[in-house]
């Protein structure tokens, strides 16, 4: 039966080439944009080196202090995290806790040439939570950080810029006026991975000033690696309990009375980072719903176009509908047939969109707009694309199919649509 449907579907598409082209063009461009967006999301959020354990990792990305007249909100400071996030390591469900700074621009001069890098300060545990792809040497350790050793891990782009791609382990690099001994070289991490990416990673304790140790607000984030995903709710709850305690020790108790922070998943963290979640009221679930709604709106135009074309084809196919009904097709069977036909069209469009996405993603990677991005079409993105195409196909096919199936057989055999 399906084979018969497919034959008819392809013939119908070939019959009205111009409309088919318009439909396919609309679907392919829609799918192309959605696939590129999906690839960027996937590249930002899916577990991949070095954030291979992201599914059981929580981050403290945002801290808000509120008082009767004042509100201050930013990424947390080392002082706060050291006092109230580090103790989470004692929980049975927690494997590691790491504190790390945001990546900051840093300037170096090599042979009179200015080089701008992204510098990140981390502790030793950071290298135990993350799984970087090492090209040379190894990461720095908890002891390196504790003893404030001037050691650094650099990425392959930094090795190329500073050492012409020659082996860098054991050599010295000067970044932001400080000299570090390179202990390891890792593969470039896309800047989209906001908790791990940088050009140069150095111990927190090598910071130029020690003032960061007391600060509650700004410049840092905390990562908590759970032993199992099932432990995440307990960790979140424990952080809230620590926050209640922290409220008794606020740095400026006259101005601020309450403290808000969350142990967030990577997606929730991204929501906060891009500023969509600054208010406590705007939850990531709502952001997901908005994203889904945007996707639907984006699909609406080609969907309406396809619905319209399908409706205009009812008259073309009246005789066939009449015949099928006369020979035993129920309305439900016909709905199935027309939805399958529409799915064939949308899957063809999706396939074209998929093929177009390959050069577009390659161009995006080469452009450097998203530093170190290696956007691509992996199986996950492909499956998302397939799901979107099926959703799109059903969405645009059901109504015209229902209309077609409701044709009265006698009217249909006379070639009338009503």
């Amino acid at each position, binding site marked *: 039966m399906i084979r018969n449907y497919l034959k*008819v579907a392809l013939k119908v598409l070939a019959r009205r080439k111009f409309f088919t082209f318009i439909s396919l063009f609309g679907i392919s461009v829609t799918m192309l944009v959605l696939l590129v967006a999906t690839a960027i999301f996937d590249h930002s959020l899916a577990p991949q080196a070095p954030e291979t354990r992201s599914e059981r990792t929580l981050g403290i990305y945002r801290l808000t202090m509120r008082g009767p007249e004042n509100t201050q909100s930013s990424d947390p400071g080392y002082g706060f995290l050291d006092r109230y996030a580090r103790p989470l390591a004692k929980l049975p469900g927690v494997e590691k806790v790491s504190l790390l700074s945001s990546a900051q621009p840093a300037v170096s001069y090599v042979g009179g040439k200015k080089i701008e890098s992204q510098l990140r300060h981390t502790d030793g545990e950071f290298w135990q939570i993350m799984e970087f792809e090492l090209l040379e040497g190894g990461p720095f350790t908890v002891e390196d950080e504790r003893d404030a050793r001037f050691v650094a891990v650099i990425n392959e782009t930094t090795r190329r810029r500073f050492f012409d791609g020659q082996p860098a382990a054991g050599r010295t690099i000067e970044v932001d006026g400080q000299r570090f001994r390179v202990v390891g070289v890792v593969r470039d991490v896309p800047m989209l991975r906001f908790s791990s990416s940088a050009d140069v990673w150095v111990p927190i304790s090598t910071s130029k000033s020690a003032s960061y140790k007391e600060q509650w607000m700004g410049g840092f984030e905390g990562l908590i690696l759970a032993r199992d995903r099932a432990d995440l709710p307990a960790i979140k709850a424990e952080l809230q309990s620590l926050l209640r305690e922290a409220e008794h020790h606020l740095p400026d108790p006259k101005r601020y009375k309450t403290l808000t922070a969350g142990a967030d998943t990577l997606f929730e963290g991204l929501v906060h980072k891009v500023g969509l979640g600054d208010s406590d009221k705007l939850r990531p679930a709502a952001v997901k719903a908005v994203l889904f709604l945007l996707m639907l709106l984006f699909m609406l135009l080609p969907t309406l176009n396809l619905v319209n074309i399908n409706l205009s084809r009812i008259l073309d196919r009246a005789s*066939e509908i009449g015949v099928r009904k006369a020979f*035993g*097709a*129920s*309305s439900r069977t016909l709905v199935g047939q027309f939805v399958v036909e529409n799915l064939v069209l949308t899957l063809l469009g999706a396939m074209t969109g998929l093929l177009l996405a390959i050069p577009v993603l390659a161009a995006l990677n080469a452009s450097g707009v998203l530093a170190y991005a290696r956007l691509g079409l992996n199986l996950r993105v492909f499956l998302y694309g397939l799901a979107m195409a099926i959703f799109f196909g059903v969405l645009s096919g059901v109504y015209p199919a229902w209309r077609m199936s409701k044709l009265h057989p006698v009217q249909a*055999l006379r070639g009338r649509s009503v």
Partner: protein
Amino acid sequence: MIHLDQVSKMYRTDRIETTALDNINLAVEKGEFVSIMGPSGCGKSTLLNLMGLLDEPSAGKVELDGISINGQGDRALARVRNERIGFIFQQFHLVSDLSVLDNVEIPLLYRKMSNKERRKAALAALDRVGLSSRTRHFPTQLSGGQQQRVAIARAIVGRPSILLADEPTGNLDSQMGDEIMDILEGLNAEGATVVMVTHDPRLAERTHRTVRLFDGRQVQ
């Protein structure tokens, strides 16, 4: 086999009501070959559509093998049409995008059977109408007579007990018309009940009896 009891069919629009059939009482028994005649617009096709469960009467009862089909749902009617009735139309109504073989297979798509069985039955039906050499052709590549033979193959492929033919020779010349009539007679001889709408008295004479309609009423 087919019983129509005081059947009427009215078509209503906002302003007018047209009576297409008025109080028809008709019984077609198993194995009969019945022709329906009358001037254009007298309700012949409407009567055939009611017998074929393609339309519902405005009043009266339609029974098929003793079972009333009044008020049956879409799926139940579709099943009866699929299993018991084969249609042959004046315009052939072949699906132009499908090959001859695929066209003939259409009624079997709505039955639970394997592709192999379906193909075998379709080939046998085409053989029965003398078109086994044209299975891969498309309808537009065939003459009118050949197209109608494909339509007959499609009508008989599911071995229905009733064949309803709406002016099956209306679009054909007399020689091709005779060929089609020969096939219908042959099928009737093999046990099929045939009801045929026709304008041609010569063809009507070849059937067991003729029902005549005039202005929606049965006159004979």
